[in-house]
C-alpha cells in the first residue's frame, strides 16, 4: 500500500468521522450565536441516535428514523430553552443535566423495550442510510490521483454525509443573508438591542434552539442509522464535547467550523490508522496516546495558543430586562 493509498484511506475515514461533528458543531453554532451555551449537544446527539434507531427499526425506514431523531433532539433543545431562557437557569448546569438524562434514559428505554443490554436491534437494508455510489465510479477508478479520490472519498458515502456538507453553506446563508440570521447574531451579542427593536428575545432564542435541535438530530441519526446499524449505550462517546471545541476553534463561524471538524476527524482517523504501527523516529506509541490526542488538542486550542476566540458577548447570561 503506497502513501497515496494510505492518504486516500485516511481521507475517507476523516470524512466519515467528521460528519457527526459537523452537524453537532453547526447545531451548537446556532444556539451559541444566539447567546445560549449548549454543553448538552452530547446528550442531544445520544437521544437522537436512540430515537432514530428505534423508529428506523419499527418502521424499517431510515427517513422516519431521521425524523424521530430530529424530533427528540428538538425536544431536548426546548427543555434547555425552558430552563435557560424561560427560567433563566444556569445554562451549563442545564446542559449537563440533559446529558445525564439522555445517557440514562436511552439505556433504560432500550432495555425495557428491546431487552438487548441497552442496545436497539440491528438494522438492515432500508432502515439504514446506505452508501451511495456516484455515477461513473467504475470509469473513474483507474484515472490516476483523481480516480481513487473520487471512488473512495467522494463517492460511497451515505446521503447524510452529503447533507452535512450542504448544511455548511446553508448555515452561512441563513446566518448572514436572512432576517432570522441577522436577529440571531444580534441577540447573542446584545439582547437588549433586539428587545428594544421590538423583537421578542425569548421567541427568537427558542427558534434558534429549534434549529440547534434540528441539526443535532442529524448528528444522532448519522451515528445510529448511517455509520452503524443500531443504537449502542453511550455511542456519542464525547463527540458533543469535541464538536464544542471545534466551534470555539472555528470562532463560531460556519465554514471554519467545517474545517475544524475535519481536523478533529482527521486526527481521529490518523490515530486509528497509526494504532500498533511504529511512528518513525519514536517507535511504537501506546494506543492510548492516539486516543487522547483529540482531547489534548482541544485543550491546546482552548488555551488560545492558536489564536484567541471571542465568544458571542451575551453568551451564557440569561436575559433580564434592564431598568
Amino acid at each position, binding site marked *: 500500500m503506497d502513501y497515496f493509498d494510505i492518504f486516500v484511506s485516511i481521507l475517507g475515514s476523516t470524512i466519515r468521522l467528521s460528519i457527526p461533528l459537523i452537524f453537532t458543531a453547526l447545531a451548537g453554532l446556532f444556539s451559541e450565536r444566539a447567546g445560549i451555551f449548549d454543553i448538552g449537544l452530547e446528550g442531544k446527539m445520544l437521544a437522537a441516535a436512540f430515537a432514530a434507531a428505534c423508529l428506523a427499526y419499527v418502521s424499517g425506514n431510515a427517513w422516519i428514523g431521521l425524523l424521530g431523531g430530529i424530533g427528540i433532539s428538538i425536544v431536548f433543545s426546548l427543555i434547555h430553552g425552558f430552563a435557560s431562557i424561560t427560567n433563566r437557569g444556569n445554562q451549563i448546569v442545564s446542559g449537563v443535566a440533559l446529558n445525564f438524562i439522555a445517557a440514562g434514559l436511552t439505556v433504560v428505554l432500550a432495555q425495557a423495550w428491546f431487552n438487548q443490554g441497552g442496545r436497539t436491534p440491528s438494522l438492515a437494508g432500508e432502515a439504514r442510510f446506505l452508501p451511495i455510489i456516484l455515477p461513473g465510479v467504475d470509469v473513474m477508478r483507474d484515472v490516476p490521483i483523481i480516480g481513487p479520490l473520487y471512488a473512495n472519498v467522494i463517492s460511497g458515502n451515505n446521503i447524510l454525509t452529503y447533507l452535512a456538507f450542504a448544511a455548511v453553506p446553508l448555515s452561512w446563508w441563513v446566518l448572514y443573508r436572512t*432576517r432570522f440570521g*441577522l436577529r440571531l447574531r*444580534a441577540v447573542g451579542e*446584545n439582547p437588549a*438591542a433586539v428587545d*428594544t*427593536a421590538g423583537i421578542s428575545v425569548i421567541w427568537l432564542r427558542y427558534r434558534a434552539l429549534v434549529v440547534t435541535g434540528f441539526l443535532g438530530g442529524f448528528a444522532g441519526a448519522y451515528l445510529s442509522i448511517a455509520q452503524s446499524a443500531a443504537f449502542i449505550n453511550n455511542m456519542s462517546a464525547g463527540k458533543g464535547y469535541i464538536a464544542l471545541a471545534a466551534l470555539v476553534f472555528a470562532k463560531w463561524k460556519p465554514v471554519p467550523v467545517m474545517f475544524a471538524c475535519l481536523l478533529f476527524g482527521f486526527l481521529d482517523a490518523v490515530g486509528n490508522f497509526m494504532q500498533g504501527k511504529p511512528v518513525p523516529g519514536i517507535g511504537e506509541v501506546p494506543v492510548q496516546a492516539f486516543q487522547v490526542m483529540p482531547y489534548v488538542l482541544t485543550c491546546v486550542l482552548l488555551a488560545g495558543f492558536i489564536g484567541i476566540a471571542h465568544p458571542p458577548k451575551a453568551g451564557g447570561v440569561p436575559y433580564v*430586562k434592564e431598568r
Partner: protein
Amino acid sequence: MTPHPAIELAGIDKSFGAVHANKNINLTVAKGSIHGIIGENGAGKSTLMSILYGFYQADRGEIRIDGKAVTIRDSQTAIASGIGMVHQHFMLVENFTVLENVMLGAEGGQLLAKGVSGARKELKRLEAEYGLDVDPDAVIEELPVGKQQRVEILKALYRGAEILILDEPTGVLTPAEADHLFRILKVLRDQGKTILLITHKLREIMAITDEVSVMRRGEMVATRRTAETTVEELAELMVGRRVLLRVEKGEAQPGKVLLSVKNLTVKDGRGVTMVDNVSFDVREGEILGIAGVAGNGQSELLEAIAGIRKPTSGEILIDGQPVAGLDPAQLRQIGLAHIPEDRHHMGLVLKFEEYENSVLGYHREPRYGRGALLDLDAIRKDAEEKIAKYDIRPPNPRLKTANFSGGNQQKIVVAREIERDPKMLIIGQPTRGVDIGAIEFIHRRIIEMREAQKAVLLVSVELDEIRSLSDRIIVMFAGKVVGEETPDAGEQTLGLMMAGAV
C-alpha cells in the same frame, strides 16, 4: 379643532415590590415641542419612559397617543405607535455595521438583500434632511459615542418615529457633541416631531426645551413653561428644599507631595491608549479634582493608580517610592484607600452580608483574624461601629448588601475606606446615584480627610461636585491632561477644556 396633544399620560402607577416608582402620574406633551423631564436619581423618570416604550407595564393608568388610547404591551407596539427611544445605555450591537443596526427589527422581508438598498436610500434621505451623517458601513464599536448616539436616533427615525424619547443623552457627550445633538433635536422639532428629553442638567433644560416637568419620589410635582421658570426654581422643585450648591470648607494647607504620577500611559484590553502620558502631583492636605466627560481615561487612570490595571509605561510614586508594580492589596498596606466608581461591580459584593463587605480588601489584616481564619466577631463588631458612625440604614450587619439602597451602599464603601485612616484617598464618582442627604454627608467626609492632611484625588463627571470640593482641578480629554485650573475657573472655561477645545 385644536390638534390632540402628542402624548397624554393619565394616572400612571408602577411599583417594583416595595418600591413605588411611579405614583399617579399625569403628563401632557404638545405635538411639535421639546419637553424636558427632570428629577433626582431614582425619582422614576426612566421607569415612566420605559412604560411609554413598552418595557414595563404600568400597574394602572392610561396612555393616549394623538388622542387615541393605546395599550403598549411591548417595544413593538410602541414602535408601531410612532414612539422611538434613545436609551441611556445604547442599544446597539457593537460588532454590527450602522446599516445592520438600523435595519435590525425593520428588515423589510425574510431576506436581507431586499431591504438593504432601501435602507441605504432612506439613510441618505435622513442624513440630508436632519444633518445626521454617519457612514452606513462603519462598525459600531469603531465609532465615537457621539456618532453611536446618532445611530440610535437614526434607528428611531428609520422606523418612522413621531415621538422621540431621549434618556440622559448628554451624559457621555462632550459639550460640542451635545451642541450638535441639540441642533439636530431642534431640526426634528421644527419638522413636527415631538421630543421627550430626560436630563439632570438644568442648563440644557433652559437651553432647548419648550416645557419642563419635574418628578420627585415617583410623583410628577410640577410642569412649567421653560420661558417662565428659573434654574433655582427647578432645583428647589426637584429636591423639595433649597439646595446648597457649595460645600463649606477652610483654606487648604498643602504639605509635601504624597502621590506623584509621571508620564503615565495605560492601554485597555484591545490595545487602545486610554491614558496618554499623564503627569500630576497630589499633596497632603489638598483635594485634586479631575474633571472630564465620562470615557476620557479617568476610570483607567484611577484603576492604574489603585493597582487594578497595569500601566503600559510611566511611573506612580507614593511618598517618593515607585508603586506601579504593586497590587491593590499591597497598595492598601502602604495607606492608599480607593472608593471605586462602580460600587455594584467593584466596591461591593452585593450577595454578601453587610459585615462581609465592610472588610473587603482589608480582610487579611490581623485585626480581622490571626492566621488563616477570620475572626467573625471582630468583623461584625467593627461593622456595627461603622454603621453607627455613618448612619447606615437599616443598621443590620447581617443584611444582604443588595438590599441596601444606593446611598447606603455607597456609605458602606466610604466607611470602609475612610475608617481605615489611609494616608491618601482616591475616589471615583463618589455620589453617583446617591440621594441628596447622603451626598452632603459624603462630601463632608471628603473635606474632613483633607482637613486631616490626607491627600485626596477626586474624579467626577459632575462639574459642580468637582468645583465645590477641589483645591485644584485638572481636566482630562481623550486620555490627556489638557490643563489645570482653580475652582474659581468659570464653567465655560472648564467646559471648553472638557470638550478638547483648548
